[in-house]
């Protein structure tokens, strides 16, 4: 099973590129020129988002290293205990929307500590698979078009995250 899935996911990207290039050839476009023209846009987009990335990584990195995140977790623990949310998962649930690299680190840590196939390990895996680094996504997408007024996007995206995290926990409880 794992071999099949690995094969399929390894195949996805090369296959898409191959199909598009063949299509371009068959329909007789000057595809290399078209490719270069498009690739130039990529540079512009990166230049637009680079300053945002520096700022965001700095803020998230210092929040974590200073120990502020730990305080937030301690503060939220009693509230989440009320709704019977497993406290082992909580650091992951809080960091997941803010930082991709540290949530991977925490999820790996949880899986090692409680066992990758344990209920807690499954919860951590499903949360990682079902949610995204919301704050980062919003910042990158908005700054690429130089927009600062983001209206209600944070509320909507965080609602999706909370629903995703709670569903992950419930589904894993139900399955085991």
């Amino acid at each position, binding site marked *: *099973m794992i071999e099949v*899935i690995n094969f399929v996911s390894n195949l996805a*990207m090369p296959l*898409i590129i191959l199909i598009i290039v063949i*299509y*371009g050839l068959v329909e007789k*476009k000057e595809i290399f020129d078209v490719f270069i*023209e*498009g*690739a*130039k846009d*990529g*540079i512009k*987009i*990166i230049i637009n*988002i680079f300053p*945002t*990335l*520096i700022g965001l990584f*700095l*803020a*998230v990195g*210092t*929040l974590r*290293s*200073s*120990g*502020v995140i730990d305080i937030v977790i301690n503060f939220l623990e009693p509230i989440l205990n009320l709704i019977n949310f497993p406290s082992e998962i909580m650091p992951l649930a809080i960091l997941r929307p803010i930082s991709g690299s540290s949530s*991977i680190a925490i*999820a*790996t840590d949880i899986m090692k500590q409680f066992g*990758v*196939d344990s209920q807690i390990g*499954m919860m951590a*895996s*499903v949360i*990682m*698979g079902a*949610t*995204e680094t919301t704050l980062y*996504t*919003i*910042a990158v*997408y*908005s700054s*690429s*078009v130089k*927009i*600062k*007024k983001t*209206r*209600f*996007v944070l509320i*909507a995206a965080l*609602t*999706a995250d909370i629903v*995703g995290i709670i*569903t992950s926990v419930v*589904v*894993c409880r139900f399955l085991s």
Partner: protein
Amino acid sequence: MLNIVWPIFIIISFSYAIFSGNVQNLNSSIFESIESAVNLSITMLGTMCLWSGIINIASNTSIIQKINKILKPIIRFLFPEIKENIKAQNEISMNMVANILGLGNAATPLGLKAMESLQKENRNKKELSNSMIMLIVLNTASIQIIPTTIIAIRSSLQSANPTSIIFPVWIATICAATAGILVTKILIKYSNKGKKT
């Protein structure tokens, strides 16, 4: 949003670190953060240019129309305001396809290209349009068939069945996306009403 959140993050963490005697950790994390931002940008520069080029080929051929035909009902429902903007529709469909296939590296460049096209017809250039918000929410919900990253982590930790999470992930991600779309739709309606009166 970041004009308020960012300084709060900085002030809180810097003063807490000084207060709790954690300055050395803080100091090294400043440089680590900057370094990882640079690393990420350089990695992204490559994939960004690659996929911007590939999408440009795709949007010059008929393959994009075929994908669009399949996704049209969904895009119409989610993005009612861009009926006329074929270019943005193309880019959004490609972004969706990349997301569903779990190609995060490809999805971001395609999504950012779509943002660019949406900005062109955005009436208030300083504010996210309704379509932009929907696009961002869809991308934060990360609907995918195969969650490749987490499967890789699980098999590296010698899981007996690394792929056993796929089905639970589908359920959770569909619930998350539905909730996100619903809240977005409701808030769009609400904010439109506010503007009219």
